[in-house]
């Protein structure tokens, strides 16, 4: 294990506290504060993984997860980016996508076959002859993919979700972000500050000279009570109206492992700073090549000297600063090759000279040598004319800075190339979003901080808590501070590019990009699709801004009008378990849910509800059905839509949506009617009664209840009618008491006369049970027997249910479920919408034409025009009843009616216990719908066998309807 520095103020580790973990079946130790990757690095591991396509060795590169170089399997979870995953005691770390090990991968020979695999080679190979493709595909599938996931893997951990509101949301807890948060908070606004690393500080945190300042700022942030700080929280999405999403990784003391955070903010400040623009040269991703921030943070944050002998190839003053810091910590620096001919900070140059570190301006690394790890580097002038090779084990390489614009672009901000900084900078920002700090190209610490204050005040102005003058003052202050630094223009070192990688995750080289452009894929979006560049687990962090710069350069475009490819959320790969959060079940239950379950109800989801479908394991429901036909049973029909509509224009509204003449609805009687859509399709049916003048009560089908109020509102939106609709669906429960003994049962619990004379079929009554429970009772006959539908306030449902149960105990009253009801009503040919109707059938087709009143003059009835237009079309589907020939079994629901073509299908068919024969309803084309027509039925898996039915009159059971009227 490597020695750690323990005297640096910037350290985030506690070298005294060891943490044990398993790596490749061996026990290793890291220290408190390590990431998995730094712990491995401390143990001398340099090759973490192999690349996706060529199986090239990969090591630490950025420490911020911009590529998949350190993706490993951690505790059976694949593709974990070890460089920003905190080490925990007992973690089990495995390599992935290797045959053998990452050190010795037997698949590494593929790296030498790259000549066979130019950009898009898949498209031109393996399809001739056709039969080799399935075999090749199998091999491709096996070779592709990084990690392995077991199909029975169970994700451990707990996942939470929160949905806070805030005035200002600041993304990025570096100096400018902290200043923005402070400025907004001092304006008495609620502020959320998100920082992806475990602590605040950003660009200041790991640099010797700025570390103290970052602590001061963090202290000030934490002292302000109206700033809510989320550390270790990655922002992943930005949506309309400043909806910001992210996720937080929990500390050991938190109750969650990760939590999803969705923030609604009035104003957003993006302070995400910069990453380093990868330097493109030959073998630029070999283990031993790393970016400046990575090398510096390894030392300053994790106490690890990144190498022994280093060559720097940089294009930004941070490289010079890092070289000095690392030199002072004991790293031998053989050479600093600076891309820039001039423009360096003179103070840094002087110090470098004092330390005798060789520096070449206008030079760049052009090739990393070494089989698996860096052994030496070839550096050359940026024109490639002269070069030399220097032995080293570390190449610190970076082309310069590149702003993290993801949060801006996913919020629909537009980018524009800025020639001075070489940045793609936010050009058009979305409303109430501000950018600050290094995103603007600023490098000077005072400028960064001041720009943060400015953004914080601008956000405060969005919340109307700041004066324009104050903003003007800060603007002026900022203008007097150093502006954006000139950036390097170099895109690639002078190389041919066969092994110069522009995208590490997908092994895309400069050569591949050239090939793509020559094939006509000349814009970054097409190149991305053709070469896969930027589609890997690193979310395009590595190729991001290099790709458009290179494309522009290669095509010698006069100005860089080419834009980076579209950034897509999530900006950081996010676990499904984190997105899923607490994952509530949202289905509704009726008041009878528990009691029916206790009675053995087998439940099913029906629409938004859970309902008892069966009351025994016999799914033909023989007992339930026979009980209703001969005795008495109870069904929980609470899911029915229930509405009150009242007001002077209530009748007009009803006339509009129902097809019948609703003026005929009477007090004390129930009327059955239906609603159609503009095509005449039946969308709903139900019963309605008049409670009193201008006041009606009606039911709808379970499935439509949620849309009914809106349907009425929408279709009367221009009429300015005065009426109100109240959805009582959840407020009222419904008990359907059915069977010849139902009157005798109900009699026992009511005080009024409910004889057939006093309370006849199709009538409506209101009464109270036990002088306190108000009941709306209707005599309906959906199942074809004497039947009462009792509408009871939900809170009384269980009481009434129990009373009925007791009252019916003499008859051995039974529950019945939705399936028994389905069969009972089918025997009676009462339709269920969606089961005997569909998109192609209108009111007339399903035999409900009798409901349509053509004389209505008062209101335009929805669907009436379509019904009139379609009336003469004899080819439409029609609902028919049929019996099976030779009394054979019923066909499966969904079987087809055919001749040489498909002519219709079976909606519902059952072997009827009541009728002792197979009956069913089907939708068939008009010409086939006459009584007596023989139906050829095609069942699934029937092969050449057919069964036959014959169209008969409907209904099948009790055609006179005497049983429901008894």
């Amino acid at each position, binding site marked *: 294990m490597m020695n750690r520095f323990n005297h640096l103020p910037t350290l985030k580790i506690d070298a005294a506290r060891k943490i044990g973990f398993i790596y490749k079946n061996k026990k290793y130790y890291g220290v408190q504060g390590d990431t998995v990757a730094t712990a491995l690095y401390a143990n001398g591991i340099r090759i973490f993984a192999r690349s996706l396509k060529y199986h090239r060795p990969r090591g630490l590169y950025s420490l911020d997860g911009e590529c998949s170089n350190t993706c490993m399997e951690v505790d059976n979870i694949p593709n974990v980016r070890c460089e920003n995953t905190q080490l925990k005691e007992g973690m089990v770390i495995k390599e992935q996508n290797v045959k053998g090990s990452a050190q010795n991968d037997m698949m590494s020979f593929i790296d030498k076959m790259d000549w066979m695999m130019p950009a898009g080679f898949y498209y031109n190979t393996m399809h001739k002859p056709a039969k080799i493709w399935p075999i090749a595909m199998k091999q491709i599938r096996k070779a592709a993919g990084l990690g*392995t996931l077991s199909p029975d893997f169970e994700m451990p951990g707990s996942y939470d979700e929160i949905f806070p509101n805030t005035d200002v949301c600041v993304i990025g807890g570096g100096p400018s972000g902290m200043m923005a948060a402070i400025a907004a908070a001092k304006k008495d606004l609620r502020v959320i500050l998100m920082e992806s690393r475990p602590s605040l500080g950003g660009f200041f945190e790991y640099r010797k000279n700025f570390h103290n300042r970052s602590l001061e700022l963090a202290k000030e942030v934490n002292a302000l009570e109206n700033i809510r700080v989320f550390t270790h929280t990655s922002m992943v999405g930005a949506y309309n109206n400043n909806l910001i999403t992210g996720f937080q990784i929990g500390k050991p003391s938190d109750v969650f492992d990760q939590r999803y955070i969705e923030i609604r903010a009035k104003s957003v400040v993006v302070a995400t700073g910069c990453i380093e623009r990868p330097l493109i040269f030959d073998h630029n991703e070999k283990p031993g090549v790393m970016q400046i921030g990575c090398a510096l943070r390894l030392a300053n944050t994790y106490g690890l000297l990144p190498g022994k002998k280093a060559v720097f190839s940089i294009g930004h003053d941070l490289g010079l600063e890092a070289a000095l810091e690392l030199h002072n910590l004991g790293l031998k620096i053989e050479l600093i090759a600076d891309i820039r001919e001039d423009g360096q900070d003179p103070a840094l140059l002087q110090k470098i000279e004092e330390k005798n570190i060789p520096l070449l301006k206008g030079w760049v690394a052009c090739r990393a040598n070494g089989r698996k790890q860096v052994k030496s580097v070839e550096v050359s002038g940026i024109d490639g004319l002269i070069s030399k090779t220097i032995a080293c084990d570390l190449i610190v390489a970076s082309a310069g800075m590149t702003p993290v614009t993801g949060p801006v672009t996913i919020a629909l901000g537009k980018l524009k190339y800025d020639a001075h900084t070489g940045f793609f900078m936010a050009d058009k920002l979305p409303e109430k979003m501000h950018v600050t700090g290094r995103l603007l190209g600023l490098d000077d610490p005072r400028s960064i901080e001041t720009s943060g204050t400015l953004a914080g005040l601008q956000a405060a102005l969005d919340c109307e808590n700041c004066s324009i003058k104050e903003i003007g003052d800060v603007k002026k202050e900022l203008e007097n501070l150093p502006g954006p630094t000139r950036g390097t223009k170099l895109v690639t070192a002078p190389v041919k590019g066969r092994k110069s990688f522009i995208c590490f995750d997908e092994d895309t080289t400069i050569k591949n990009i050239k090939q793509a452009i020559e094939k006509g894929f000349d814009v970054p*979006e097409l190149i991305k699709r053709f070469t896969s560049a930027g589609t890997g687990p690193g979310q395009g962090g590595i190729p991001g801004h290099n790709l458009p710069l290179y494309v522009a350069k290669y095509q010698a475009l006069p100005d860089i009008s080419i834009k980076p490819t579209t950034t897509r959320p*999530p900006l950081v*790969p996010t676990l499904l378990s984190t997105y899923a959060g607490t994952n509530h079940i949202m289905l509704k239950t009726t008041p009878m849910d528990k009691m029916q379950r206790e009675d053995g109800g087998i439940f099913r989801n029906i629409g938004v509800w859970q309902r008892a479908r069966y009351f025994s394991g016999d799914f033909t429901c023989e007992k339930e059905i026979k009980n209703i036909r001969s005795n008495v049973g109870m069904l929980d029909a609470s899911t029915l839509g229930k509405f009150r509509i009242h007001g002077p224009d209530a009748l007009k509204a009803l006339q509009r949506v129902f097809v019948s003449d609703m003026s005929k609805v009477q007090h004390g009687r129930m009327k059955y009617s239906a609603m159609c859509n503009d095509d005449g399709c039946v969308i709903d049916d139900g019963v309605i009664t008049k409670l009193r003048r201008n006041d009606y009560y009606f039911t709808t089908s379970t499935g439509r209840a949620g849309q009914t109020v809106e349907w009425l509102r929408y279709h009367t939106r221009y009429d300015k009618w005065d009426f109100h609709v109240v959805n009582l669906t959840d407020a009222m429960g419904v008990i359907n008491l059915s069977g010849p003994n139902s009157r005798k049962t109900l009699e026992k619990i009511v005080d009024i006369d409910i004889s057939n004379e006093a309370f006849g079929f199709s009538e409506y009554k209101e009464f109270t049970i036990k002088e306190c429970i108000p009941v709306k009772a209707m005599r309906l006959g959906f199942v074809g027997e004497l039947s009462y539908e009792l509408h009871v306030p939900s809170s009384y449902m269980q009481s009434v249910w129990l009373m009925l149960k007791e009252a019916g105990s003499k008859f051995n009253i039974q529950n019945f479920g939705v*399936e028994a009801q389905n069969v009972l009503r089918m025997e009676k040919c009462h339709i269920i919408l969606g089961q005997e109707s569909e*998109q192609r059938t*209108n009111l007339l087709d399903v035999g409900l034409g009798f409901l349509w009143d053509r004389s209505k003059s008062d209101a335009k009835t929805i669907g009436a025009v379509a019904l009139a237009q379609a009336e003469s*079309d004899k080819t439409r589907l029609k609902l028919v009843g049929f019996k099976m020939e030779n009394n054979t079994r019923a066909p499966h629901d969904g079987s087809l009616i055919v001749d040489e073509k498909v002519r219709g299908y079976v909606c519902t068919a059952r072997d009827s216990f009541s009728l002792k024969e197979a009956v069913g309803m089907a939708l068939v084309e008009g010409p086939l719908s006459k009584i007596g027509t023989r139906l050829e039925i*095609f069942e*699934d898996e029937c092969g050449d066998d057919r069964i036959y039915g014959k169209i008969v009159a409907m209904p099948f059971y009790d055609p006179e309807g005497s049983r429901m009227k008894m």
Partner: protein
Amino acid sequence: MIFKNKPLWGKKKKLKSSYDVVLIGGGLHSLATAYYLAKEHGITDIAIIEKNYIGFGGAGRNTAIVRANQRTQHNVPLYKEALDLWPVLTKELDYNLMFNNCGNLNLMHSEAAMKAARMTIATAQFHGVESHLIDAKEAKEMVPALNISENITFPIHGAMFHPPGGIVRHDAVVWGLAKGAAKKGVEIHQHTEALSIETKNNKVCSVTTSEGKINTRQVLISAGGYSAALIHDMLGIKLPISVLTIQAMVTQPLKPLLDHVVSSGAYHCYANQTLKGEIATGAHMDPWPNYTTLNTAHYIKHQAEALSEFLPCLRGVRFMRIWGGLADMTPDMAPIMDGNNQIEGFFMNCGWGYFGFKSCSAAGKYMAQFMATDQCPDIFKPFALKRYEEHRLMGETAALVNYTPDN
């Protein structure tokens, strides 16, 4: 092995002042139409006019699933032919379309869904398309990652297994068809915007583009989600189309885990594994009409919630990228393919919703026949616009749908 790097779909050319046929839209249906016009009918003087780059719209945004297990007798034969064309096109175009014939598993979560599946399966079998109803246990054997326990929101009752379906590399189809069409002389004009269509005596006479005016006798608008707006703006023809954003996403790449396309209506979710190993997943649309292709926060969350339940091992995987595309929805989930009807020489092929990818080859083939012969092929007849006037919806979905802004 030698790979010549010449432009796949021809060198950039200057737009001519006249073409026999102008196709507006550089997506799959347009490219397929051009390819078949050139190949089967010898019509090669064709300009494809694309505002962005080929495959910009739905062609490059779909999840590449192909199948022929639709609901009605009008749709099944069309999709079956499209399915049969993938191997043929791979050969003809000499371009590997990477058809992964892995089969589709459509999960059913209720008795009603099983009944609906049975009808769809019977329809498929009646038309000679393989499709079977299987129970939950059999489904689990095919997809070991499935959760067939009772204690999820929508327990799995069974599935419709459709072996002939699978996944095709969608970009390859775009580029392959472009290559094939260009080779036969079709000109593809990218970054060229069609601005208007001029008519004379109710006949098409020219198309005005950002690069100049083209005289032509025939024009097809087949521009995916943008078709309805273009057709209305250019010719004043109103279509019953609502355009909605549909989103899809992929996880980080994994070694083989899903060997079939898995989909679930109740969960509004489907998932398949790409050749690269990513789990590609998507589902229903945001229900408000728009042309933005914007992502919404709840969508990716919903997807994670759904997958967490029926493919729970995926809880350990990370989403990597989500994107949006446009679905031009008709009231009956079936397309509008029509021509020479409203205006002589004007053809349209739109309203494909989210089924445009799987049908492109067959639709292109018959549209080419339609345009070349001026006779509507029988297979297209049920898809004419007038079905809406006659209130004869096609029944591609049993449920009544309403995608308008108002409901």
